[in-house]
């Protein structure tokens, strides 16, 4: 068994252990779940240390026959991008557990069920980034919707059932389109190489242009819904509003990354020609997402939907970076995914605490938190600064890379994207000003500051944002060789500036 399989199985073992704990002992349940996720995080860090960053290909590869009749294998392996995303996941999960220590209470089902669902979800999140067999990827991609559905619908706030349903229907619809493409790909591989779902083998197929375009669209729409890209985004604000802070963190921070990850891993690798064909359209969608998300974020009255719309804007940046198809663009986008994960986590978790204390998620209900709860206010401030990509915080590095990477090829898109940064300053500063600064408004006088548990939970997130802002090298170091492999696969190279230009 390779490292990844062990890593993926650990949360499942934890879920089993939780399942056998007595229902009444909620504290023990939480402790076991937290301990499991901490162990998973440590193991993943160990795996990262053993990872050879000078290589671009898959490492820790493992493959077993699963469904021989369809040439389906249990095949896993990670490259630099997958590694960083898995690390982000495994580090976020214990933070989410710790941050939302009490959010499982008052749900539709027991505390135990909540943690079982989350631990199963962690296994799937690891698996989805590690799968190198397309069928395996698809199975996890679809199956993981079920725990998320129950997490939003069962433990969320407000119109949670409706939001969960909307999320599920959108995702399933995208998934089914992808299924059609997966089947098509399989049949083509049957005709050419006797059937395979192996990513590497499939990338060597020769597929005629029209077919390639259709298959590309099948995958891309699924990922665009997941990411989400304008105009496939409408489920996101609802889901983000309805989910618990922890669920929303994982939903936007990790699950949505599967969309952008999938674009790199599958769309570009499998259909290089179609990728080039559709690039102008996708770049346009990305720019629209950046601006649309930012504009709508400015007008939001609800903190959670504000965060959701900022994410739509950020996913626009990520997509722009990916399809700019320069090494800076792709590396920047991959790094952006990690940063966005942590920065969204910070936003959701701190706003979750604020909302819980105030009993409202309306921005207008807050005011002057700086005076009553300085630590909470500062944390929210830092999270906001990370969302607007303040230099010195990690998101600045990635946003800069994406814009630099895309400017060479798509100057107009890059310039329009840059206005997204200006808008970002607007939407973040407005909410910061309204909630944190000024006189403490009625209803906020007695809000308590963060307790020790919450401080411990938020500290690593902020530390990561700052450290990677000044010292992004380790992550970029892991990502860059993979980027090189991907670019080689698509057959593009960085534009060389002509002399005198």
């Amino acid at each position, binding site marked *: 068994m390779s490292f990844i399989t062990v890593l993926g199985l650990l949360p499942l073992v934890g879920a089993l252990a939780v399942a056998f704990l007595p229902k009444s002992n909620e504290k023990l349940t939480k402790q076991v779940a937290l301990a499991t996720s901490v162990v998973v995080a440590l193991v993943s860090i160990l795996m990262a240390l053993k990872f050879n960053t000078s290589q671009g290909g898959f490492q820790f590869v493992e493959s077993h026959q699963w469904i021989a*009749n369809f040439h389906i294998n249990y095949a896993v392996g990670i490259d630099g991008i997958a590694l960083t995303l898995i690390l982000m996941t495994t580090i976020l999960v214990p933070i989410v557990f710790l941050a939302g220590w009490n959010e499982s209470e008052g749900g539709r089902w027991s505390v135990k069920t909540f943690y079982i669902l989350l631990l199963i979800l962690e296994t799937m999140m690891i698996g989805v980034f590690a799968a190198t067999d397309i069928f395996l990827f698809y199975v996890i991609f679809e199956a993981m919707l*079920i725990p998320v559905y129950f997490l939003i619908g069962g433990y969320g706030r407000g119109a949670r059932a409706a939001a969960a349903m909307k999320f599920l229907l959108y995702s399933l619809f995208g998934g*089914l389109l992808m299924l059609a493409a997966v089947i098509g790909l399989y*049949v083509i591989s049957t005709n050419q190489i006797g059937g395979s779902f192996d990513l590497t083998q499939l990338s060597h197929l020769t597929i005629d242009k029209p077919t390639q375009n259709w298959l590309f669209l099948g995958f891309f729409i699924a990922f665009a819904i997941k990411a989400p890209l304008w105009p496939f985004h409408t489920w996101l604000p609802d889901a983000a509003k309805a989910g618990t802070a922890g669920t929303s963190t994982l939903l936007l921070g990790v699950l949505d990354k599967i969309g952008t990850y999938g674009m790199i891993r599958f769309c570009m690798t499998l259909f290089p020609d179609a990728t080039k064909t559709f690039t102008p359209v996708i770049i346009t969608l990305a720019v629209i997402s950046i601006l649309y998300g930012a504009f709508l974020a400015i007008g939001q009255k609800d903190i959670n939907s504000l965060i959701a719309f900022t994410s739509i804007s950020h996913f626009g940046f990520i997509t722009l970076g990916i399809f700019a198809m320069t090494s800076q663009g792709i590396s920047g986008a991959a790094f952006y995914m990690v940063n966005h994960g942590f920065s969204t986590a910070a936003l959701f978790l701190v706003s979750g605490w604020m909302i819980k204390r105030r009993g409202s998620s309306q921005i207008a209900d807050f005011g002057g938190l700086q005076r009553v709860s300085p630590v909470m206010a500062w944390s929210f401030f830092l999270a906001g600064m990370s969302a607007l990509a303040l230099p010195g915080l990690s998101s600045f590095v990635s946003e800069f890379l994406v814009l630099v990477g895309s400017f060479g090829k798509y100057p107009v898109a890059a310039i329009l994207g840059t206005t997204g940064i200006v808008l970002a300053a607007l939407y973040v500063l407005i909410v910061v000003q309204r909630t944190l600064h000024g006189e403490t408004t009625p209803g906020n006088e007695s809000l308590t500051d963060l307790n020790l548990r919450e401080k411990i939970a938020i500290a690593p997130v902020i530390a990561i944002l700052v450290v990677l802002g000044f010292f992004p090298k380790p992550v970029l170091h892991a990502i860059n060789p993979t980027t090189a492999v991907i670019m080689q696969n698509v057959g593009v190279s960085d534009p060389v500036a002509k002399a005198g230009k």
Partner: protein
Amino acid sequence: MNAPKLDYALLAPILIVLGGALIGVLVEAFLGRARRTGVQIGLALITVAAAFIQVIRIRHSGSSGAAVLSVSIDGAGIYIQGTILLLSLVGLLLIADTDNFTAQASAVPGSTQESAAIIAGKQQTEIFPLTLFAIAGMLLFPVATDLVTLFVALEMLSLPLYLMAGLSRRRRLLSQEAALKYFLLGAFSSAFFLMGSAFLYGYSGTLTLNGIASAIHTAGNNNIFLLLGIALLSVGLLFKVGAVPFHSWTPDVYQGAPTPITGFMAACTKAAAFGATLRIFYVALDGASWSWKPMIAVVAVITMFFGAIAAISQRDVKRMLAFSSIAHAGFILTAVVSLNNHALSAALFYFVAYGFATIGAFGIVTLVRDSAGEVGDLNRWVGLGKKSPLTAAIFGLFLLSFGGIPLTAGFIGKFAIFSAAYESGNIYLAVAGVLSSAVAIFFYLRVIVMLFFQDPTNDSVSVVIPSAMTRLAITICAIVTIVLGVFPSLILNATNTFALFTR
């Protein structure tokens, strides 16, 4: 004239079931009422189990002339027989809960006679021999290779079902109406089948499927008799599998029939009827595929979309499952159009995946009751997840499998069938299938939302404690649904080996 040579070992599964049915009739006649139910249940289970063991024993042999040229025991035939027997075994466990059946079928609903029969604790234990007769017909239908034997098998499996549909204990009028409707429409479709057979005979001068195939080969495939024959025969077959536009009996009969019978009928009849359909189109009409492929393809697409869309507006759980079964018929019909071995293999897998989930789902329907009996109204199922989490979760599992969510058997079935359709060049069928699945998922989810995300109301239903046999049946169905979803290779190997019609 020489006596026809019969290969008794190969015919044994059918003969065992027929024998069991006849003994069952004798038990009805000679055994006292007190012990009848127990004996009949035991007899039926043993008979079906014995027949299954015989199927296992003959799995590697086979002959195209098991009964002169009328029965061909081949790979696909043996596999379908095995599937039907296994599904029947589980179905019988549900039927064994005789509380679902009327005390006296002949009594006028609501009459004093009827209440007297109920008070006296009477039972119509004839359902067990009737079930066995139906099973025997189902075993014969997919292996029959001449049109007359096919017709006989069709009637043999249908007649007991017509009767059984009318035996519900509660809501007798609805049940009797269902039986009558089923009978009339069934008889009508049988006539179509027979008429089609006559035309095919007129065209080819033979009744055997192989003979028709060679006639198509030599005499050409553009003959008005042939085309009429294919069209009329298709009507008969499409009626039995419940494809649009011959589906209208399905919701009424599914709703009116006693729930265990509905489950049995939905799972086993579908396997048998599709087995025969596949054989007829693959073996006999292969050469004329230009004429029927577009027709069946259109029917398949309409069927899957109609089933999925109509199911959305259903308020009764049995009607919803009926429309879902119509949608599934559409999916399996794509396998008929694909006309390749992978499609056959996929259909064989689908029978198992769909059959077990169906029996399990109807099994759960039998458990959800109020004081007046089963409750079909979905609005009263709300909050079941809170009252009986396990029952609701298992029902949810079956729905997810119907919906084709990964890690359930239904997903693998769909994947196999759509990839075979794609492979055969009918890409639009695969795409239509995927899109209609998206529609279908909506109503499965709607039920899941009702079960889990709504709070129980005052007139919500409760779940009765299942009898041991019902519990066993549902457990088996749930296990099969999950295990085949995760390790489909367990039977995919078999479906691949057995996916063969000898010609």
